């Protein structure tokens, strides 16, 4: 008999089940009646920010080469009896994985053979197979992936911004590493990382679709062994308030210059309901002040300073967060100064009720739409789990937040947050 709770949201006619599995792996199931596609995503709280670790059994911290989490992700598609894609091929499932700063996720979506595909997902993720030979082969493939990203102005611009914004925090490490750093990876190292970070207590399984929870649990029971329940520590890192560099310029093959303007989050809460409230206040604030209905957007767009590529987002993880303004402009410095000016103006003049209400409506709509698609639902569960919040919390917070909450949040962001402007432009002709 499994420990299952059901959590409902009547307003949007949705619910999900949480299973506290004996293996210590939390399992979420979000029913989607009538949908053709179903999907599953299993993720671990291990990413590029985990650059060293120590368990109780170790004498000292082990330093990890940049890019190891991403490398491990690639290798988990290979098992003793073949490649995961060979097995997914028989069910027709579309499978993939990604590594980001603080998480690695493996997933598939399919319109048929869901339980067989779930079996494959758990089999490969829970049974690592690393050999010296298969590690060497992967180096060639990942080296090509790294070079592909080396040529991408958008990735390089973004990375330069993050590296400018943070002095010590490992969020500044490039997720795939470098050709040199991955060259040092061995199969033993991969096993050490796997054992430390791929324990059930550090992972979450999310499932969405028109399925049977009993059948899901039958597959899970087959593959989920006991958790080692080891404590895994990482060295503390002091991140000063100030940015490492306030400005970075790179030259690449790019048309109009592109820019990334980052603001480091002055508030260090990234977990729980307090974070959920902060996140919703921030999303509302960004929508009101920098969104497409804002006076600032209109002014910058009409004058040709920005174009439809302009965006503003709140990027965050379990222990970091920053705002990113991104776009194309011939004068990124002017964009930055307009943004700063607008922040001051909002702090003086405030936001009106109408702007607040319409932003709230828009965010409500987005939250509901996100849950109409299997992949969207799974991503939402991952994001919420990473911050220890319930998947319906954002909607609940949205109902409670007031205009003055948003203004208080504005005082934090628009006060004296550290800033970095990264610009990528083409080589000046000599």
């Amino acid at each position: 008999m499994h420990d299952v709770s059901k959590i409902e949201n009547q307003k949007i006619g949705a619910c999900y089940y949480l299973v506290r599995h004996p293996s210590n792996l939390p399992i979420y199931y979000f029913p989607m009646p009538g949908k053709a596609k179903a999907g599953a995503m299993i993720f671990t709280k291990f990413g590029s920010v985990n650059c060293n670790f120590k368990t109780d059994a170790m004498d000292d911290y082990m330093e990890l080469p940049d890019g190891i989490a991403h490398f491990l992700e690639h290798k988990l598609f290979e098992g003793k009896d073949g490649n995961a894609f060979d097995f997914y091929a028989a069910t027709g499932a579309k499978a993939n994985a990604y590594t980001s700063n603080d998480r690695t996720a493996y997933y598939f979506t399919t319109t048929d053979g869901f339980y067989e595909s779930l079996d494959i997902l758990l089999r490969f993720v829970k049974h690592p197979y690393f050999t010296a030979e298969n590690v060497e082969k992967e180096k060639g493939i990942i080296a090509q992936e790294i070079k592909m990203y080396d040529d991408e102005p958008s990735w390089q611009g973004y990375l330069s911004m993050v590296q400018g914004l943070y002095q010590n925090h490992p969020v500044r490490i490039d997720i795939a590493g470098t050709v040199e750093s991955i060259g040092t990876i061995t199969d033993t190292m991969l096993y050490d990382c796997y054992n430390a970070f791929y324990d059930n207590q550090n992972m979450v399984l999310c499932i969405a679709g028109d399925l049977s929870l009993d059948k899901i649990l039958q597959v899970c029971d087959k593959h989920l062994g006991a958790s080692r329940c080891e404590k895994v520590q990482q060295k503390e890192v002091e991140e000063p308030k100030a940015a490492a560099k306030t400005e970075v310029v790179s030259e690449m093959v790019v048309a109009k210059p592109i820019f990334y303007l980052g603001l480091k989050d002055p508030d260090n809460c990234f977990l729980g309901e307090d974070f959920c409230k902060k996140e919703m206040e921030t999303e509302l604030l960004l929508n009101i002040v920098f969104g497409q209905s804002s006076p600032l957007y209109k002014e910058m767009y009409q004058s040709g300073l920005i174009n439809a590529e302009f965006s503003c987002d709140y990027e965050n993880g379990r222990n970091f967060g920053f705002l990113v303004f991104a776009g194309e402009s011939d004068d990124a410095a002017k964009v930055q100064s307009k943004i700063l000016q607008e922040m001051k103006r909002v702090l003086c003049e405030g936001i009106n009720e109408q702007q607040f209400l319409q932003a709230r409506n828009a965010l409500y709509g987005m939250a509901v739409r996100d849950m109409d698609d299997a992949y969207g639902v799974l991503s939402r569960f991952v994001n919420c789990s990473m911050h220890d919040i319930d998947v319906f919390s954002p909607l609940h917070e949205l109902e409670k937040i007031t205009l003055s909450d948003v203004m208080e949040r504005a005082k934090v962001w628009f006060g004296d947050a550290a800033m970095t402007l990264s610009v990528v432009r083409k080589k000046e002709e000599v």
Partner: protein
Amino acid sequence: MQNIFTKTTEIFKTDFVSIDFLLPLSTETAAPLSLLSQVLGRGCEKYGEMEKISAKLERLYGAEISIQSNRLGEFQTLSFDLSFLRDRFLPDGASICDEAVDLFFSLIAEPMLEKNVFRTDFVAQEKQNLLDKISAVINDKRRYALLRCRELMFKGESYGVFELGSSEKIAQITPASLYDFYKQVLHHAPVYVSVVGEGEALSQKISAKLQQIGVAEERIYVKEQSEVLAKRQPQYFEDVFPLSQSKLCMGFRLGKTARDNPQAARLFNVLYGGSPTSKLFMNVRERLSLCYYCSSMFDTLKNVMFVSSGISAEKYEAAKSEILYQLEDVRCGKIQKEEFDNAKIYLLDTLRSIKDSQARWCALALQQGILNKQVDLEQMIEEVKAVTVEQVVKVAKDTELDTIYLMKGEMGGAADA
């Protein structure tokens, strides 16, 4: 009023409407059509300029309207899409359908004008944005290589026309000429309409609005191609860029077999390079580690296939050989049963996935519309199931390499792993 493809279904939280005007792809109309898609979004008489339109959409619980111009085979579209939450998912008994539809049609049929033509500032600003978009194509290297390959392969043909237009044609456009062009499109261009969600009642509203506007009744269809393959020696082109990775794109023309049996052609594409267990992925990437990606893409409306791969410059010959070698394997019938069955399963999953996406239903309806065929997903699925190995081999035998394009990366002195 002509047919509106209506799909009534309860599985989505939104209602979705797609209205697509079509013109044949041509150097004369590409620029104005692209520019029109941008200018129309700048404002409408009833609701005001773009920030007021955005504000209204936000108030309508994040309703979304997009106005785009895309290529579709040898056509170019001017597409208007609308999606909004259905009443039962809105708080406090709100209802937004009529307001959303009204805003949608204001944008389509009542643009903001100045002296009876488009506003001078809108046209000037969007011309600059369009020029920037054209220059920005270089930012996505993989896409750039594909565009160059297509442009070179179909030089002089409508399929080779770049849908954003050219800077010369853009410069020639005036607010008056653009407005005249707009009226032509609105009242005379063939139009395809799809509604997915609540169904009939919404379709009736859309139909009534279109009738008020006075859109064209006639349809336009994909023309029968000449079956004679332009047999020529494969052309080779290269451009050199300061990049660490080279991008290879190879264009292939498929023949009559593919045209007569589009599902066999699609299956051939999946088997050859359209999945992670395809011949290209398994050999060029997995077995030979020559690249991070190597895949094929098939355009059923033009019967052409493109293979794309990111490689180191010095691996070009090896990659090209392997890509052609794998095609030869398919031609010789070197296809294992498991390989074939898996390609079918993959394609069936892709087709079935359409049921979960309103946008993809509309795209399917449009594609079937211009092929003058019914929208029958279940039948397409049955047709795929019935494809045989022999049919796929026949498609491969009728496939000829036409053009190779290499975006050659040369970084001074960089050593490759």
